């Protein structure tokens, strides 16, 4: 009996190990594929041209700077929306809302997260952009602001889920201790619970950023896709073009192996590296070793 048990144990362990390693293997393979297809762009296009400010690829203007600034300004705008709404909602759900309200709201927020981004983009074109144009007196509603609002809305459910779990896992003794010392409820939340859940909340934000920078369909439909350098503060009220929208719109009709093809993969490589950096920062925060005080208290 014992012999048969260990045989099946070994098999299951091997299968689970393979699944675990395969995740790493896939990411590495994707990275090498992007490298193989994207690095020739560095050889075929001069570095100065590649980082110039004009993107018109069918006549060999391969400047990707407008695309990078477009992605960055939309991500920053989306974070300005997602941080207050995301953390605020998480705090409300975990600290303030009565139990019965929490049971209703939490699934609703998860439902919002399941909405396809294409649907949100469609709503954006039909409802949000005309409203922005009229309300803010802009030439057109297809702007970085529309993209940032939509992406903020898309990032909020992710942020709320994880931040709320992090806040929930703060031991009740922290709150009880603070209240016993005479702190108000808000002081407890702001100065005790939130800092204690700091790593989880930061992870939530980083995941929100990662989701935002990779979002394609919604931005392609509402930002106008104009490759302008989005560096001024007023640029958020102007159309922009993101890296993701560029790849989605242009990859379908590009000749395999041409310079244009390599440049598009190079953009994909830049996107991959940005996501990688964001995730590395996130995990270094999460897996930071606890200080002695934190270990003693928890």
């Amino acid at each position, binding site marked *: 009996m014992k012999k048969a048990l260990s045989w099946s144990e070994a098999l299951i362990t091997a299968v689970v190990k393979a699944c675990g390693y395969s995740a790493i293997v896939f990411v590495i393979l994707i990275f090498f594929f992007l490298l193989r297809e994207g690095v020739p762009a560095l050889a075929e296009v001069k570095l100065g041209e590649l980082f110039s400010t004009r993107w018109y690829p069918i006549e060999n203007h391969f400047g990707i700077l*407008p695309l990078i600034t477009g992605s960055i300004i939309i991500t920053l705008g989306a974070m300005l929306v997602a941080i207050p709404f995301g953390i605020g909602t998480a705090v409300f759900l975990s600290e303030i809302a009565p139990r019965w309200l929490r049971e209703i709201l939490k699934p609703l927020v998860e439902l919002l997260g399941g909405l396809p981004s294409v649907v949100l983009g469609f709503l954006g074109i039909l409802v949000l952009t005309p409203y922005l144009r009229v309300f803010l007196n802009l030439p057109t509603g297809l702007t970085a602001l529309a993209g940032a609002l939509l992406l903020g809305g898309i990032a909020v459910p992710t942020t709320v889920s994880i931040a709320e779990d992090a806040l929930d896992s703060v031991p009740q003794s922290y709150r009880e201790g603070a209240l016993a010392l005479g702190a108000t409820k808000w002081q407890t939340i702001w100065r005790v619970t939130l800092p204690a859940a700091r790593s989880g909340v930061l992870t939530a934000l980083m995941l929100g950023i990662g989701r935002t920078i990779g979002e394609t369909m919604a931005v392609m439909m509402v930002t106008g896709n104009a490759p302008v350098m989005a560096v001024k503060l007023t640029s958020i009220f102007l159309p922009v073009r993101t890296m993701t929208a560029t790849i989605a719109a242009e990859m379908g009709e590009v000749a395999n192996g041409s310079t244009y093809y390599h440049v598009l993969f190079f953009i994909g490589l830049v996107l991959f590296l940005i996501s990688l950096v964001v995730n590395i920062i996130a995990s270094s925060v999460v897996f930071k070793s606890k200080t002695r005080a934190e270990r003693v208290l928890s």
Partner: protein
Amino acid sequence: MKSLRFALLTLLVFLAACGGTSGQTNPQPGSSTYIQNKGSDTIVNLALAWAEKYQAEHLDVSISVTGGGSGKGIAALLNKTVDIANASRQMQAEEIKQAKANGFDPLEFVIARDAIAVIVNPTNPVGRLTMQQISDIYSGKIDNWFQVGGQDRPIVRLSREVNSGTHVYFRDTVIRLGDKKNKTLFAADTLLLPSSEGIISEVRQNPNAIGYDGLGYVPPDLKTVAVAKDAKGPYVLPSIATVNDKSYPVARDLYMYTAGQPAGTVKAYLDWIVSTEAQTIVANLGFVPILK
């Protein structure tokens, strides 16, 4: 016993995984004629739609359609590797000379027309523009509607994406006014929308917007601009009639070329293409059907 059940379960899983493949599709019954059709990417969707319709009605004919560009199609015709070459431009003098050297006279058939309509919001008072004005608007030289006789509003330029044939045609014919040496580009803040629907919905609700698209894609509730070649010329609205009589300036013919007089199946196919049935497909795909 536990291990026996486990072994049986694993076996079952593997058997299910190796389960039936989907049924093979049967190849078409022996086709007796094969028509090769290659060339312009502008025409390729139209040629495919025609080929599908024709093959459905004539089961003994097999038509292969490829894109690659007008140049590739004509080159293949000169090498006698295709029966019909699709071209969105006319054959040039050197190509005709090459054909004669290869022993045949290329025959040209106009199979449809392509026109671009310039559209504005219905509340926009501007209804007529010259080609030069449209070129200046799109290249960024004109920024406000009052400079072309409208209200004091900023101009929001809408365009198709760079991989669209319509975008390239508009750039060459309107922005560069047909001049091959002209290297003017679209203004950097031109909105490049991924679909016709995006352009139409923005023009419909934004009074500042100007856009363009193939004539077939423009719905009747949008205002089309009458275009003139120059300030003296007549301002012409695009329609099937004005495109066919060549009075609308932003229009071109689409061609199919054969090596000499076509015979048999190829002739029958070309005759069908200019018939009413095939020209309805032209209208459905956003091009302009030819008038008899």
